[in-house]
């Protein structure tokens, strides 16, 4: 059932524990259409747990989660229609080409695209034409991330969840990725990305939330601070809780 909601992503007082460990502590977050929100925090802060909750793979212990007005755990099939997911490592089928991978993932999403359309999506996501028909086993991580974004793009997902999407990318690839994420947001997608890369987060996101030990400590407008200021705020905020 779709609830009326002005936010594409809404988390209200969400808590999640794994046995004795509190992974998320009363997290509240609201993302309107077209926003890029970055969850910034060290390993174990609860970023991936938040993404798994939004993907519907985990059930919150407390609180309410809505993605485009739909509870992703209870109505996972419905919610996933509007969600795309880009993991830290987009593991494609290595024996298939970029075009074939995109085609397969698009078919699973119920979209049958022509070869021209598939190539256009890959091209729009920055993949070089010469790589379209090559097996993705020979792709660099950056190229695979681009195919991952093309998969999300082709799905026309209104919500895109990214878990450390730029991790391990070289600066050029990382910058290209930021531009792509911006482009997706400009076209109306709401993006929540988890990262511990301060500089990349500052470059990409509209808002940044500092998450530490499951608690959202602070939310910052990305354009209101420089990268150095963000680093200072982050370190200061985190150290205060130690």
């Amino acid at each position, binding site marked *: 059932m779709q609830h009326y909601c002005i936010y594409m992503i809404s988390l209200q007082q969400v808590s999640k524990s794994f046995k004795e460990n509190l992974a998320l502590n009363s997290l509240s977050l609201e993302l309107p259409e077209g926003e890029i929100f970055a969850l910034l925090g060290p390993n174990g802060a609860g970023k991936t747990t938040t993404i798994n909750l939004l993907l519907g793979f985990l059930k919150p212990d407390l609180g309410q989660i809505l993605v485009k007005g739909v509870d992703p755990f209870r109505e996972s099939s419905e919610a*996933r229609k509007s969600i795309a997911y880009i993991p830290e490592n987009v593991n494609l089928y290595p024996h*298939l080409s970029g075009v074939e991978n995109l085609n397969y993932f698009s078919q699973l*999403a119920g979209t049958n695209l022509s070869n021209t359309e598939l190539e256009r999506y890959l091209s729009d996501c920055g993949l070089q034409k010469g790589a379209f028909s090559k097996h993705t086993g020979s792709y660099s991580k950056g190229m695979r991330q681009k195919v991952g974004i093309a998969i999300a793009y082709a799905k026309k997902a209104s919500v895109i969840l990214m878990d450390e999407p730029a991790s391990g990318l070289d600066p050029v690839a990382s910058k290209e990725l930021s531009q792509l994420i911006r482009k997706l947001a400009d076209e109306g997608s709401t993006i929540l990305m988890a990262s511990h890369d301060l500089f990349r987060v500052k470059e990409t996101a509209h808002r940044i939330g500092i998450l530490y030990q499951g608690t959202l400590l602070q939310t910052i407008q990305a354009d209101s601070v420089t990268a150095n200021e963000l680093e200072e705020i982050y370190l200061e905020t985190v150290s205060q809780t130690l």
Partner: protein
Amino acid sequence: MKTILLNEWRIVARNRWFLFLGISLAAMLALSSYLGIQETKSLSILEQEASAHIREQWDNQGAGNPHGAAHYGTYLFKPSSSLTGFDEGVNGVVGKTIYLEGHNQNDTQYSEASQSVMASRFGKLRPSLILQLIVPLFLIFMVFSTVRQERESDRVRLLIIQGGDYQGIISGKIIFYWLAGTVFLGISLLVQVLMDTTALDSGTFLRMLLLFLGYSAFYYIICSLTAYLSANFRKTGTALSIMMAVWIIWGVFLPRITGNLAEQFYELPTRSEFSAQMKEDRSAGVDGHNAEDDKIEAIKDSVLRQYQVASVEELPINFDGILMQTDEDFGNKVWDKHFGNLYQVMDRQKTFAQASSIPNPLQSLQSLSMGLSGTDQKSHIDFLLKVEDYRRQFIKSLNDKHAFGGSKTGDWEWEIDQDFFRSMQDFSYQNRSMDELLGATWPDVAILLGWVVGCFFLIKSIRFQL
């Protein structure tokens, strides 16, 4: 589903190792099918030639004494069913040649296992061996690999978010590899059809169809179990280790354990015990060649009364022939008693083995495969019983001719024209009918079906968990 199947096909077709393994397996199957059929054909030709030679000797023995001919006897060969090349079953160890004579019921002899070290130690390379042990192993590795890769690469989350249903993805993979298994099966059956067109009657086609269904059911079980374990265990090695253990237990240990238990619970007498008991019971009968035998007197009195004469010399028939047949009838009763008991025990052993294969569908498949190929123990016993029926008619015809063909008692030199010997019918063996086969193999079919249904629900219960 079509999308998942097509994707799996692309992955397999483009992986050189998978392709190499698949092609090697298919070639091995085609070769074993070819060799099996060729060997069966060659053996059949040899047997036909030998049968024709024996018949020619029989027909051209000239005029002779009928009872002398009963002692001379004849040889029969167990005909190979058209699917012997597919599944050798017990044929390699029980022998195919049987000597028929008066007074004695002989067993088959000259088994291949007694003449070949390879056959006795390893069995023969037949498609059934590859389809029962090697193809499932291949399927275990393939299904394990494809399911596990999705999980370990975390691609599975991407697939699910894209709209793929986890259970549907797993089912698609199961169906793909199950189909691959049936392709291997189809190859060996196709070689059978192409190479052995003369033997392909509707009965054989039906048997092949049931073989196809039986093996297909087993491959579904193997693929489903592997997929279920691979999808549910967090540790990679655990699922594969369990499936390997299952394969070894099903293929090596359980058949031997149930076989040994069946022998313990339903014990057969040793060969020497059995022979001694037979000999003892047999000694209570008349000795047709010994006129001093006391038991002969009672029979003589009965015959004399029947013909209303005072002595055997006055009889219009040959009393010796009657004695021979009486001896034969008694021997038949002794045979029926001892072999009847023996076959009953074997039947109980078979029933026990079938029932105890509930935890082992491979055992059910093996039993079904041998049954449908006409090479199981029951088929062998069926052959022996029909041979014994023929032997009885054969010897009775000779004894009756000796008794009522015109000779007088004590006239052992009396001879009948060779036309009589030529008029005797050859032995012709028909395999068990489909009804008989289905009656004997239904427990195997039921167990396989039960497993298929169980696996179907097992797969239905799969849920993705992080």
